[in-house]
């Protein structure tokens, strides 16, 4: 009788001792202790707007990044590496406000600039805007005869300026800089553009105040206009889950609720 009790006590103690080990390793504290904060981070999504971790002043990093995913978690200086947005969106009353953007040209894979090759002699200017197979850049548009954006209604040269490849071109032939994609996208996507202007769509960092300085995220910092149908947004890895309660080895207790539990 006493033996059984002792055995029970022993096993109970063992369970208690094991309890901390039951916490699975995929927690924040694990990453904090075991992984270095990466020097190469990304802002919204990997490959869309990347950032390198440096110090803006001694002790103040420009960004703090996730040890797990490399996503930026915190901006020391929200305006690091930005330039004025240029022409402010029409209709909006932001005349008193300072708006900056991060130049897109620094993030583009092939920008050397574009006219280094597309200058009319090394690569001749296209004769018309009709779809044709591409000789290069298939990594951006795998199938140029079947461009996803616009579902067949538009093609590359409806947005990319054929005569000056360092710019976009709007439907009236006006040139738009590569750092102001919103002015191009807004020509068709008016409703979203309106929301973006009001700060409802998209993202801004800096000052919330009226008249305060803000960094605006532009369209292509989150959206890839070339892959809008398939792979509209690639899923991303989440940050670590919270630690389980002390006495739990898993989260089965919370699956006891809800529709999946088969009430």
């Amino acid at each position, binding site marked *: 009788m006493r033996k059984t009790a002792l055995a029970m006590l022993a096993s109970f103690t063992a369970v208690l001792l094991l309890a901390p080990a039951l916490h699975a390793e*995929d927690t924040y504290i694990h990453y904090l202790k075991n992984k270095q904060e990466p020097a190469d981070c990304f802002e919204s999504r990997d490959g869309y707007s990347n950032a390198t971790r440096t110090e803006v002043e001694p002790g103040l990093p420009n960004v703090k990044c996730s040890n797990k995913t490399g996503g930026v978690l*915190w901006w020391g200086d929200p305006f690091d590496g930005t330039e004025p947005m240029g022409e402010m969106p029409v209709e909006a009353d932001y005349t008193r406000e300072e708006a900056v953007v991060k130049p897109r040209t620094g993030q583009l894979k092939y920008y050397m600039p574009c006219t280094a090759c597309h200058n009319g002699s090394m690569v001749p200017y296209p004769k018309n805007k009709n779809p044709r197979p591409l000789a290069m850049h298939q990594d951006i548009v795998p199938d140029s005869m079947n461009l996803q954006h616009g579902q067949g209604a538009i093609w590359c040269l409806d947005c990319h300026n054929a005569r000056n490849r360092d710019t976009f071109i709007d439907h009236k032939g006006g040139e738009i800089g590569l750092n102001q994609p919103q002015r191009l996208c807004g020509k068709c996507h008016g409703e979203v553009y309106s929301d973006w202007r009001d700060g409802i769509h998209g993202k801004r960092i800096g000052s919330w*105040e009226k008249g305060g300085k803000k960094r605006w995220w532009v369209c292509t910092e989150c959206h890839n206009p070339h892959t809008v149908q398939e792979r509209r947004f690639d899923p991303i*890895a989440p940050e670590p889950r*919270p*630690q*389980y309660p002390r006495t739990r080895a898993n989260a089965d207790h*919370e*699956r006891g609720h809800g529709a999946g539990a088969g009430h």
Partner: protein
Amino acid sequence: MSEPRDKDEKKKDAPLKPDEASRREFLGGAGLSVTAAALSGAGALLSGSDEAEAKATWGEWFQKNYRLMTEDEKREAVLRLEKRYTEEFGKQTTVDSAPAKEGVLFGYALNIQKCIGCRRCVYACVKENNQSRDNPEIQWIRVLKMEKGNFLAGDMDKGYPDPAGIQVGGNAYKNSGVVLEGEHYYEPAEVPEKGYFYFPMQCMQCEKPPCVKVCPVRTTYRDPDGIVVIDYNWCIGCRMCIAACPYWARRFNWGEPNLPAEEMNPVTHYLGNRPRMKGVAEKCTFCLQRTRQGRYTACVEVCPVGARKFGNLLDPDSEVRKILEKKKVFRLKAELNTYPKFFYFMD
């Protein structure tokens, strides 16, 4: 009471700010009152040591409720804390005491359709607000994974015990529509998962906060800019506020907070992200150390899909006001009449 503490702290040769140094010279010449000297002596006796930190702790025990402090007393408390944190964490720490701005009522809006459940807001918040990293692990934001529901006409009254019931979207035995419980320990390789949506929750900064109503020592209260704040020094750890909060917004420091010095954010506010102690409640303050200086909250800045929006509800041009104007908006548990300042919206 202030004089002897300063005299004692003078022994330590920590760097002093110019204004602090001159204040100390002035106080040094001013002489000590008998009661204050007696109290200070008792403090050293009780704490059993004459370290500056012990004395500073003693000083904290005897300060007033933050709301009743005079400007001088606030300044003194702030200086004492700055000195202590600077020593403790080995980096120059500032403790702000900026009051609410005139004409500002903070509001928050979250696009529930956009949230992908990546939890970056959770850790941006932790990095900004000096929460305990481990044992106890404290996070002010919880992201719930919720099943996408549907309303099937056939399920609406199936098996329901009373056909005259008023439940919407399902019945007592079978859920139909959105299930109301969520999971927050989810850890798939990638988010968002098909068939689910994500529902982040944090302090709603209620206009009629139940936590403020129940606090027996009135250490938690609502500032004029709408933020429900806590004077951690007056918190007695009774956890009534945690029980009263309908939004699971408050956390409790069950143990001594574990905040590594290299992780500590040295830009703090007295009512916000200054390091906490064991046995006090804490919660989201809309990053008041940032927002009262004009900056967006950490979670708004980090959200990779731009689902989080923040601004002044009294400014008709602000982002939140535009959302209230243009979008479909709801507040969580509006029927409780807590009047949250946190809005969920959809495109």
